[in-house]
C-alpha cells in the first residue's frame, strides 16, 4: 500500500472533471452533438482514471498537519491535526468509484440515445450525481461530508424533476423537505462534534473524542441521533423509505441506476462514519440493526404490494439497502465485508433490472403489470436479461447476490443472531416472488395487441443491450470469483474495526 503518497494526482480529477463537464453541458443546453461528444468522452475519462489510479491521500490546498508536539508535517501517516481537507482513495473507493463511473458512462449513452431535446441540464445533473457520490465515499471530513450529502440530495431532486410529470414533482418536493430536515440535523451533529472535539477531520475527531468524560457523553448521543437521521435519509432507510421509493419510481429508470448507486455509496460512507465515530457508544449498533431489519421487512412487503414494475424495483432497492445496513451495523469484519460487497452487488444487479425496465418503458405503455404484457415476444433478450437480473437479486448461484448474502448470513450467525439470518433469507425469497410477479406479467403473459404487430413507442436502443450484457457479465464474474471484489473490501473493513483510520 502506498499510503504515504499525500498528494495523489487522481483525487481532484474525480471532482473537477464532472464539475467542468456539467457546466459545459448546462451551457450547451440543446446542441445534441456537442453534448454527446463531451459527455461520453468525459465519463470515459473518469472510468480510465479510476481504474489506473494508485491508492493514497490528497490534502486539498496543501496545508500541512499540525503535530501534537508542535511543528508541521506533510506526512499523512503521522499523528497530526490536519489543517486542510483530506480525501482518501483506497481499495473500497476504487471499486466503488470505478463502478459508479462505469454506470455513469452507460447511463449517459442511453440517455443521449433515448431522450429528445434540451438534454443539457439533465445530463449535467447526471454528472453531478457521480460527483456527489465520489465526494461522499472519498472524504474523511464531517464538514465536507455534510456538503456532499446536501448537494447530492438537491441533485437527486433535479434528476427526478427532469421528467416534468406530476408524480415526479411531488416526489421531488417531498424528498427536498427531508433534505432540508436531514441537512439541518447533520449540521447540528457537526456543531456538537465540533464543540466536543474541535476537529472536523473524522480521524482527528475520533482521536480527540473525550470518551472517558461521562458528562459529555449525552452530546455524543444526540449527535449520533442526528447523524442517524441523515443516514436514514441519504440511504432511504425505514421511516423515509416511501419517499426514497417515490424518487426511484418517479424518475426515468436509467436515472434510477445512478440514483441508487449514489444512495448506496452514501449509505456505506455514513454507515462507516457512524461505526467509526459512535461504534463504542452503548445502543448504537442496536439502533442501527433495528433500523436495518425494519427497512428490509417493510421494503419487501411494500414491494409485494406494488403493481407497477418500476415501483416494485424501487421498494426492492430500498429493502436491499437494508441488507447493506445489516452488514455494516453488525460491526464485525465479516459483517462489514458482507455489507460492502452487498452494496456493490446490489448496485450491479439492480442496474440490470432497471435497464430492463427502461426497455419495457420504451414500448410506450408504461411499466404497470396491468397495462403491459407479452414483451418477451418482441424483445426476447430483454426478457432474458430481466430474468437473469432477478436471479441475481434473489441470491441464486452463480450470480453475485448469492455470494454476498451468504457472507451476510454467516456473519449474522457468527454474531450470535440467527434471526437476522432468517430475515436475510426471507428478503431474498420475497425478492424472488415480487420480481417474478412483475416479470411474468410483463414479459411472459401472452398479449394479443402486441402479437398483431401494433407498433407503439420507440425501438429499444442497441446500446441498452450492450450495457445490459456488460452488467450481466460483471454479475456473473463477481458470482464466480467473489474474491475479485472482496480483496478490495477487506482492508476497509479491517481498518474500520481495528484502527480509527480512513476506511
Amino acid at each position: 500500500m502506498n499510503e504515504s503518497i499525500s498528494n495523489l494526482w487522481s483525487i481532484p480529477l474525480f471532482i473537477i472533471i464532472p464539475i467542468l463537464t456539467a457546466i459545459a453541458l448546462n451551457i450547451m443546453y440543446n446542441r445534441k452533438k456537442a453534448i454527446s461528444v463531451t459527455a461520453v468522452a468525459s465519463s470515459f475519462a473518469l472510468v480510465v482514471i479510476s481504474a489506473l489510479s494508485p491508492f493514497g491521500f490528497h490534502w486539498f490546498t496543501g496545508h500541512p498537519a499540525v503535530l501534537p508536539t508542535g511543528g508541521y508535517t506533510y506526512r499523512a501517516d503521522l499523528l497530526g491535526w490536519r489543517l486542510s481537507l483530506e480525501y482518501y482513495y483506497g481499495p473500497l473507493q476504487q471499486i466503488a468509484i470505478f463502478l459508479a463511473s462505469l454506470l455513469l458512462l452507460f447511463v449517459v449513452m442511453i440517455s443521449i440515445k433515448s431522450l429528445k431535446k434540451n438534454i443539457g441540464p439533465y445530463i449535467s445533473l447526471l454528472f453531478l450525481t457521480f460527483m456527489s457520490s465520489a465526494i461522499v465515499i472519498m472524504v474523511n471530513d464531517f464538514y465536507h461530508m455534510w456538503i456532499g450529502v446536501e448537494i447530492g440530495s438537491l441533485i437527486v431532486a433535479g434528476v427526478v424533476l427532469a421528467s416534468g410529470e406530476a408524480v415526479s414533482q411531488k416526489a421531488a418536493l417531498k424528498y427536498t423537505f427531508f433534505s432540508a430536515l436531514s441537512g439541518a440535523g447533520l449540521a447540528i451533529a457537526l456543531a456538537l462534534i465540533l464543540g466536543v472535539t474541535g476537529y472536523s477531520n473524522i480521524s482527528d475527531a475520533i482521536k480527540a473524542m473525550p470518551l472517558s468524560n461521562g458528562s459529555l457523553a449525552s452530546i455524543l448521543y444526540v449527535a449520533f441521533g442526528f447523524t442517524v437521521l441523515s443516514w436514514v435519509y441519504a440511504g432511504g432507510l425505514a421511516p423515509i423509505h416511501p419517499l426514497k421509493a417515490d424518487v426511484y419510481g418517479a424518475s426515468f429508470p436509467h436515472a434510477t441506476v445512478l440514483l441508487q448507486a449514489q444512495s448506496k455509496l452514501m449509505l456505506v460512507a455514513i454507515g462507516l462514519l457512524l461505526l467509526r465515530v459512535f461504534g463504542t457508544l452503548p445502543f448504537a449498533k442496536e439502533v442501527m440493526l433495528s433500523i436495518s431489519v425494519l427497512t428490509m421487512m417493510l421494503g419487501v412487503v411494500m414491494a409485494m404490494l406494488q403493481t407497477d414494475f418500476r415501483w416494485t424495483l424501487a421498494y426492492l432497492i430500498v429493502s436491499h439497502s437494508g441488507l447493506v445496513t445489516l452488514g455494516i451495523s453488525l460491526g464485525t469484519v465479516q459483517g462489514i465485508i458482507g455489507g460492502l460487497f452487498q452494496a456493490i452487488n446490489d448496485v450491479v444487479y439492480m442496474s440490470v433490472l432497471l435497464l430492463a425496465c427502461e426497455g419495457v418503458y420504451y414500448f410506450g405503455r408504461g411499466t404497470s403489470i396491468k397495462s403491459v404484457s407479452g414483451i418477451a415476444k418482441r424483445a426476447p433478450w430483454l426478457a432474458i436479461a430481466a430474468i437473469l437480473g432477478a436471479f441475481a437479486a434473489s441470491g441464486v448461484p452463480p450470480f453475485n447476490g448469492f455470494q454476498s448474502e451468504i457472507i451476510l448470513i454467516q456473519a449474522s450467525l457468527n454474531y450470535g443472531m440467527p434471526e437476522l439470518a432468517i430475515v436475510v433469507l426471507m428478503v431474498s425469497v420475497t425478492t424472488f416472488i415480487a420480481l417474478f410477479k412483475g416479470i411474468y406479467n410483463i414479459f411472459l403473459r401472452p398479449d394479443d395487441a402486441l402479437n398483431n404487430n401494433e407498433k407503439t413507442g420507440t425501438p429499444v436502443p442497441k446500446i441498452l443491450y450492450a450495457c445490459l450484457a456488460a452488467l450481466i457479465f460483471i454479475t456473473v464474474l463477481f458470482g464466480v470469483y467473489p474474491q475479485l471484489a472482496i480483496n478490495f473490501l477487506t482492508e476497509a473493513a479491517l481498518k474500520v474495526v481495528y484502527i480509527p483510520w480512513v476506511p
Partner: protein
Amino acid sequence: MIEINLQLLCFMAAALLVVIGLGGMLFLDNIIKKIIAFTLLSDGVNLALVTLGYVEGGIVSILEPGTSAGAFPENAVLIFGPGIVLTNIVIGVSTTAVLVAVTMVLYRRYGTLKASKVLKGERK
C-alpha cells in the same frame, strides 16, 4: 448586577428554534408555512454554530493594524462556527429555492397549497 451567561442563552434559543422549526414542519399543513418553518430550523442551527465560536471577551477575526498578532489566537472567535454558518446559509438558500420552485409548479397544477391534498401518498 445579574451576570448573564450569553452563550447559554444563545444555546437555549437555538434549541428552541430548532424544535419550533421541527414542530412547524410537522403540524402546519400549508406548504409555504412548512418552508418557513424550515428556515426557522435552519436559523436555529446557525445560532448554535455561531455560539460555538464564542470566546469570552473575544474579537472579530479580522487583523486590524496595530493590534497584537500574538494575542490574536487566544482572543479571536473560533473560526469553525462562522465558517460553517456561511455554508449553512448557502445550503438553506438553495434548498428553499428548490422547494419554492416546485411548490409554484404544483400550485399551478393543483391550485392549492395544502400538503395533505397535494402531497397525498398515491401511486400512478
